[in-house]
């Protein structure tokens, strides 16, 4: 359970600064430090039991479906890393307390720092591969926030994004690798994975998996060629750099390689890739560190180089190499953190990090100079400092490594070269800053910082020295850490003096040549001017930007915003699908043969085809096209009648009229003709596509028509009278069997009314004052004969709609048709008498009518609840009254009444509102007319 606490305490620590940020900084800093400190104590408290050979584990299920457990382990490796992460983290916190200026949001900074610490601890302790990956990515996110902390600076923003992108990409690769690994092993449990080394190596997917995992590790640990983000991450505040690039972020990749070492190392492939990558990185980083002029840049490239060093060691993979690797992790963390912090102090005091502008600081800040020199010496690998020891071990291991066959000599030579360079850049760093005379005197004389700010540096420098002199002290820790990495216990001994041997010679060479190299530094500089590294940031930014541009261009090519293209794609897809289905039919014609043809049918088909083709062919002359469409509408109604569907015929007829009125109303405000725009080729293509789909539809239709259909309809025919109380089966289906459809449908109708009401809101239309040919409008606004007839027709129409409504349940008719008839009669009044006159007499709002319709239908349906039946259950009964005789009452009629009201209301909402919008005789007449001329002149420009 304490394991969980160790892992969670830093995470909870995120909340502490968030909650205490409004207090004084000292309080906040102390409070923030408390939880991680506790975690550190708890970690160290387990040292004895670890030393006794235990591996502590904790696990609870989290997401079994994925194999993700909340599982932590504390072994030697985790102990080593936890100590580094939390220990140095606390020092950084102390340092940052002084480093941040008074105006900066320190609470936020601390929170990010804690988040970062928590995620690193998570990586160190995760006992489940997926959990490890979760924390892995979390480091990327929190480092993004930290690097971009000074968000007003462009380099900070870009550096942060670059780090996130590169490490994020690596993280995605790692996910794939982890999933593969889990698949190979059959579990994401770390113990199982670590124990399955042989299975893993034998699996055919091994190399792919290894590649993916290493991609993750290399990007995070800034190995060549993914190193480029690291120097740019230096835009972060120095405490961040000190933390991320000494002990933590970049070590995550190393940690991963170490953690998985027993499982995935041990192949030739591993050694080759890891060693070579490490070696290249080592030289590359060191080389460029030598030529950087910014303190932090030098440190950054040296970090790259040192990470390469550790990687080389992990690649070699012999027990001593692993010891060396772990040792150097520790050493690098100490001296690099110290150096970063002192660089921050210098920056803080002098206002610059350019070594050209610095110099002679040993006088102004002697203590800092001393501490930095110690750390620098450790970095250079000077004897008696810790860096010397691990570097010598590297030399020894490169000599012993059985790699590269005949080129085996290359490794030690390169390692020595790396040593030379590291001596040179370390010397340059220290000498140029503290000892060389400055070119110009600083504007303000620098001072020593507060001693507490210096304390972390002092502590770390002291560690460099102590460990360098008495490496025995860390033997225990390294031994513990080695065991999980190696997969077994291993006895070793660290000492300063191994006698005069080849590694010692190499160290000496490195020292001497390194000093010389610094001496002839200027010449070297000239020498390499030719191949200066390209600025990774510029390349990266350009790459990202051109990626965006390419994406935009391709997207534009793909999606030109053209409806015609979208529609073509939609239809093409539908065509392909239809053809695929039809292609599977052995014969199109089914067993049910054709019924005989007669003249009327031929005429009907001819009229339909005439109307359809006419509509399409005359589409540029819109009014004619409409008339053709009307022919189709009429003949469709006749077709319904011909094939035994009187209800459909009635509906189609009345809808046809309403549609026509609607289209006429709209056409007034649209151009009367369509300009000829489409090329003939395009027209031909469209004809082809439409025709092909037409053929598909016809074939499907024919195929179905010539086959028998064992439909469920028999049930409706049988139950219509006994169960639904109506003889008109279609109507009973509509209001009873499938009343739910109808309820949805009147909702759609009401919605259309509402939507159109919305559309018409503040609609600005221009009112043409003459027709398409420039003819003026007729002055006769309301032709008298039409006026009289519309009035005479109204009562008759209402009577007919009452008739159609009442008989609907048993004969063709029903609420829909009745509603449409009523609505059409009222619309006729609108046409004949105008909006003003009609509105005065129809002075109720239409929306409530439509909604009351829906409500009536709904409530009728709900009524059945009272009797314990499901929604929409109908009831009917035959009653008998004296004089009147027998008659039928059915709840379905009430439902149908709802339909009637909804249809009337919605249709009027649509048409009358549309009519109203376009009518100049409104209160806001002037406004409209000015708009109208406005728009008219605008539309005038549209002429082609």
């Amino acid at each position, binding site marked *: 359970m304490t394991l969980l606490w160790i892992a969670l305490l830093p995470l909870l620590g995120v909340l502490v600064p968030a909650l205490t940020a409004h207090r004084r900084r000292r309080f906040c800093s102390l409070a923030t430090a408390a939880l991680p400190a506790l975690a550190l104590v708890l970690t160290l408290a387990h040292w004895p039991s670890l030393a006794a050979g235990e591996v502590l584990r904790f696990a609870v299920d989290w997401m079994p479906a994925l194999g993700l457990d909340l599982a932590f382990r504390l072994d030697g490796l985790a102990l080593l890393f936890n100590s580094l992460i939390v220990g140095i983290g606390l020092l950084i916190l102390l340092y940052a307390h002084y480093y941040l200026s008074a105006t900066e949001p320190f609470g936020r900074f601390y929170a990010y720092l804690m988040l970062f610490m928590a995620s690193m601890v998570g990586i160190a302790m995760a006992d489940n591969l997926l959990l490890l990956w979760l924390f892995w990515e979390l480091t990327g996110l929190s480092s993004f926030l930290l690097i971009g902390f000074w968000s007003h600076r462009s380099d900070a923003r870009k550096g942060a994004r670059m780090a996130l992108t590169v490490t994020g990409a690596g993280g995605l690769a790692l996910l794939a690798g982890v999933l593969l690994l889990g698949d190979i092993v059959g579990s994401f449990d770390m113990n199982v994975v670590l124990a399955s080394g042989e299975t893993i190596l034998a699996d055919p997917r091994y190399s792919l998996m290894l590649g993916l995992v290493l991609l993750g590790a290399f990007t995070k640990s800034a190995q060549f060629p993914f190193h480029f983000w690291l120097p740019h991450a230096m835009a972060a505040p120095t405490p961040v750099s000190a933390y991320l690039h000494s002990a933590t972020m970049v070590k995550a990749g190393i940690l991963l390689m170490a953690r998985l070492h027993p499982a995935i190392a041990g192949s030739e492939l591993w050694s080759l890739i890891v060693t070579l990558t490490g070696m290249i990185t080592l030289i590359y980083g060191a080389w460029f560190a030598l030529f950087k002029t910014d303190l932090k840049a030098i440190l950054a490239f040296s970090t790259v180089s040192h990470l390469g060093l550790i990687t080389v060691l992990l690649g070699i993979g012999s027990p001593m190499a692993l010891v060396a690797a772990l040792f150097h992790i520790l050493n690098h963390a100490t001296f690099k953190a110290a150096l970063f912090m002192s660089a921050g102090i210098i920056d803080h005091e002098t206002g610059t990090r350019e070594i050209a502008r610095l110099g002679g600081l040993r006088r102004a800040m002697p203590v800092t100079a001393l501490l930095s020199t110690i750390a620098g010496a450790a970095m250079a690998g000077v004897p008696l400092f810790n860096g010397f020891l691990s570097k010598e071990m590297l030399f020894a291991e490169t000599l012993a490594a059985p790699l590269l066959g005949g080129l085996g000599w290359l490794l030690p030579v390169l390692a020595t070269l790396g040593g030379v360079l590291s001596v040179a850049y370390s010397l340059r760093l220290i000498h140029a800053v503290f000892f060389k005379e400055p070119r110009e005197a600083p504007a303000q004389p620098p001072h020593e910082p507060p001693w507490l700010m210096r304390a972390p540096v002092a502590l770390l420098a002291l560690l460099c020295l102590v460990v360098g002199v008495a490496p025995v002290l860390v033997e225990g820790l390294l031994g513990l850490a080695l065991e999980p990495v190696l997969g077994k216990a291993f006895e070793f001994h660290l000492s300063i003096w191994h006698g005069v041997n080849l590694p010692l010679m190499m160290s000496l060479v490195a020292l001497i040549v390194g000093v010389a190299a610094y001496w002839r530094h200027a010449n070297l500089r000239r020498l390499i001017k030719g191949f200066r590294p390209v600025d990774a940031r510029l390349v990266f930014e350009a790459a990202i930007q051109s990626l965006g541009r390419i994406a935009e261009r391709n997207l534009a090519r793909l999606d030109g915003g053209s409806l015609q293209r979208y529609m073509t794609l939609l239809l093409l897809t539908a065509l392909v699908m239809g053809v695929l289905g039809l292609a599977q039919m052995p014969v199109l014609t089914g067993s049910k043969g054709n019924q005989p043809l007669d003249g009327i049918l031929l005429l009907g088909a001819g009229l339909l085809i005439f109307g359809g083709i*006419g509509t399409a062919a005359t589409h540029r002359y819109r009014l004619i096209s409409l008339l053709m469409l009307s022919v189709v509408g009429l003949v469709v109604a006749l077709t319904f*009648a011909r094939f035994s569907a*009187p209800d459909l015929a009635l509906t189609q*007829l009345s809808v046809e009229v309403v549609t*026509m009125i609607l289209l006429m109303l709209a056409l007034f405000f649209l151009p009367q003709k369509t300009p000829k725009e489409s090329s003939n080729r395009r027209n031909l293509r469209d004809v082809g596509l439409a025709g092909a789909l037409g053929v598909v539809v016809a074939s499907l239709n024919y195929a179905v028509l010539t086959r028998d259909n064992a439909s469920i309809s028999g049930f409706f025919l049988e139950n219509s009278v006994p169960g639904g109380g109506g003889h008109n089966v279609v109507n009973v289906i509509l209001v009873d069997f499938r009343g739910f459809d109808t309820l949805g449908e009147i909702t759609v109708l009401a919605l259309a009314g509402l939507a159109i009401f919305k559309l018409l809101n503040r609609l600005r239309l221009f009112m043409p004052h003459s027709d398409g040919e420039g003819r003026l409008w007729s002055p006769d606004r309301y032709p008298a004969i039409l006026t009289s007839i519309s009035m005479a027709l109204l009562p008759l129409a209402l009577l007919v709609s009452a008739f159609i409504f009442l008989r609907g349940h048993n004969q063709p008719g029903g609420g829909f048709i009745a509603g449409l008839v009523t609505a059409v009669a009222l619309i006729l009044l609108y*046409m004949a008498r105008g909006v003003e006159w009609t509105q005065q007499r129809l002075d109720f709002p239409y929306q409530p009518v439509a909604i009351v319709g829906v409500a009536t239908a709904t409530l009728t349906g709900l009524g059945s609840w009272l009797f314990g039946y499901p929604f929409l259950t109908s009831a009917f009964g035959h009653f008998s009254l004296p004089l009147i005789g027998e008659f039928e009452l059915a709840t379905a009629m009430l439902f149908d009444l709802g339909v009637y009201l909804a249809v009337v209301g919605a249709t009027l909402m649509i048409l009358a509102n549309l009519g109203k919008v376009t*009518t100049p005789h409104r209160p806001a007449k002037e406004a409209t007319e000015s708009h109208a001329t406005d728009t008219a002149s605008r539309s005038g420009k549209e002429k082609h």
Partner: protein
Amino acid sequence: MLDFALWTSMALVVAALLLNVYRLAVGPDMPDRLLALDTMYVNSIALIVLMGLWLNTKTYFESALLIAMLGFISTVAVCKYLLRGDIIE
């Protein structure tokens, strides 16, 4: 005799409809086409009535009634459109 009369009548109505189509297609002016459409509506009443006689059913009475009552409204709308542009004003 009735059958013969029925088929004759149907043939005549079919011929009438074809003449309507001719006028509709040829125009030359919008009112001509509109007139053709209007006549087509009326002729289709004849068609429906004849169908009712042929099938011996009164199921289609309402269809005919509706055409007689509402058919002219499309015509009115188009006329109003040609006369005034705005059909509801």
